[in-house]
């Protein structure tokens, strides 16, 4: 990847976060694509693909729990870490920083509801 984009470079297949491990950072994709994978069953299930400007790991900001999914780079990807402390300090002064986060989490909830309805 020859681009000047910021963040850390993850190679194809490299894990950014691992299901079951503790984590407290949010990640924002600067370039490339990642796969969100559920590893709880015998077989891996791909839940989603995320691209530039999308984020993952947001549960780690709000809950003290293990990562619910594994996220892996699909091809080379550049990813920026948003520190929990920096996030909370900033959001304390500027709550509007959370608008997009809430909007995306609401979108994801809607998508999950849709998938559940289709399964019934």
């Amino acid at each position, binding site marked *: 990847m020859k681009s000047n984009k910021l*963040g850390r470079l993850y190679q194809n297949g490299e894990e950014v976060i691992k299901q079951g491990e503790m984590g407290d950072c949010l990640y*924002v994709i600067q370039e490339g694509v990642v796969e969100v994978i559920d590893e709880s069953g015998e077989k891996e299930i791909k839940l989603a693909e995320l691209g530039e400007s999308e984020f993952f790991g947001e549960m780690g900001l709000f809950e003290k729990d293990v990562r619910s999914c594994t996220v892996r780079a699909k091809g080379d990807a550049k990813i*920026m870490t*948003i520190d929990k402390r920096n996030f909370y300090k*900033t959001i304390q002064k500027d709550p*509007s920083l959370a608008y997009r986060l809430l909007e995306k989490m609401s979108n994801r909830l809607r998508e999950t509801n849709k998938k559940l309805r289709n399964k019934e």
Partner: protein
Amino acid sequence: MNKSIELKDGSQIAVIGGGPAGSFFAYFALDFAERYGMDIGVDIIEGKDFNCAGPTGCNHCGGIVSESLIQSLSTEGIILPSNVIRRGIESYTMHLEQGSTVIETPLNEQRIASMFRGLGPRGIKDNEQLSFDNYLMELSHQKGATLISGRVTETKKTPDGIVLKTKDGFEKKYDLVVGAVGLNARTFKLFQQINPSFVPPKTTKTHICEFHLGKDMINEYFGNSMHVFLLNLPNIKFGALIPKGNYVTMVLLGSDINKEIVAAFLESEPVRSCFPEDIDLNDYMPCQCYPSINILGAKSAFDDRMILIGDSASSKLYKNGIGAAYITAKAAARTAIFEGVSKHDFKKHYQPVCNELDRDNIIGKFIFLVTTVIQKSPILKKGLLRMVVKEQKKEKNKRYMSSVLWDTFTGSAPYTDIFKRTLNPILIKNLIGNTFSGLIIGTKSK
């Protein structure tokens, strides 16, 4: 009068100045209005063409987007494109007369961007790269702002708005006029016409110049590291060399920097040793300027239906001016959309944000005063260097001085936070220990 003036559907806002503060304001005002269900119009009036090389398209700035701003923008979904970023910075190299050391980025990530505000220095031939200011202005245009090319020549207050006229004959009445004019004294007069109590910020002169060295030479001599200098030279509080594509930008901050001070800095051994020995730097310098920076915030930077933001109001002392532009622009946009546009609204919801920046700058002044004391003391500088060198071999959460210096150099954290960290007893103990160790070793070697 404590009365609010609220914007409503169809309200019109003018933003004078399309630099980062103006573009951030337009972007967030339109974003908040959309979320709130309000239909407003935003015009950005800018006389400069940021797509030009050299002074014509330049807004005279060191050209660094800080770690904290990059993180905030990423959270907002604003990802700087590859062709706007000239280089991702992954470390700082600190140079003293006593030696140099590298301070690594806390998470081994490139989290700081170097960029050019315009297209680049005079004569730049890299057509694939874009101007940072133009990128932000286009971003607000995509959000719905109208871009008007021109210079405002007249402002007139009416009972229900402010009328603006440009040199080209454009005339329109606005519900709110936002001044994002940097430190332009001529435009400040236009705001004083509608708000006589406005007192512009106090400024000092800095120096910025570019060296056209080419990518290979930059990779070999500078890499992805920003080089910072704490040297015992008069008037200079801080000097930096920032790699950017085919260029290296030199920034000198301090008080009233002039030609002689610049020459002394360039001739100093720590600076000269960063460049190849056999080149005459004057042959590689296509652009240089002595721009002013805000060192004391403006007074009464708002009134009914008018507000000044960014450098025109309050900034961060010496560092992260673009970060301060983002903070003040967003605070002004939040106030205008959710609260109102009267003097009372701005005093209640915008002024505290400027006050916090101004208070933080008082602590910043103290930090730079202490830095000046260190700059003048070879013993303290030796101790500092020893401490940082040792810390870089330790775990990241034990790099107390490195994290203080990182945030001071990058401008990522408020000065108040940095100051609190300098009071950590372990940091003080280690600095004293390393200073004495340096003294003893120095005495023994003599």
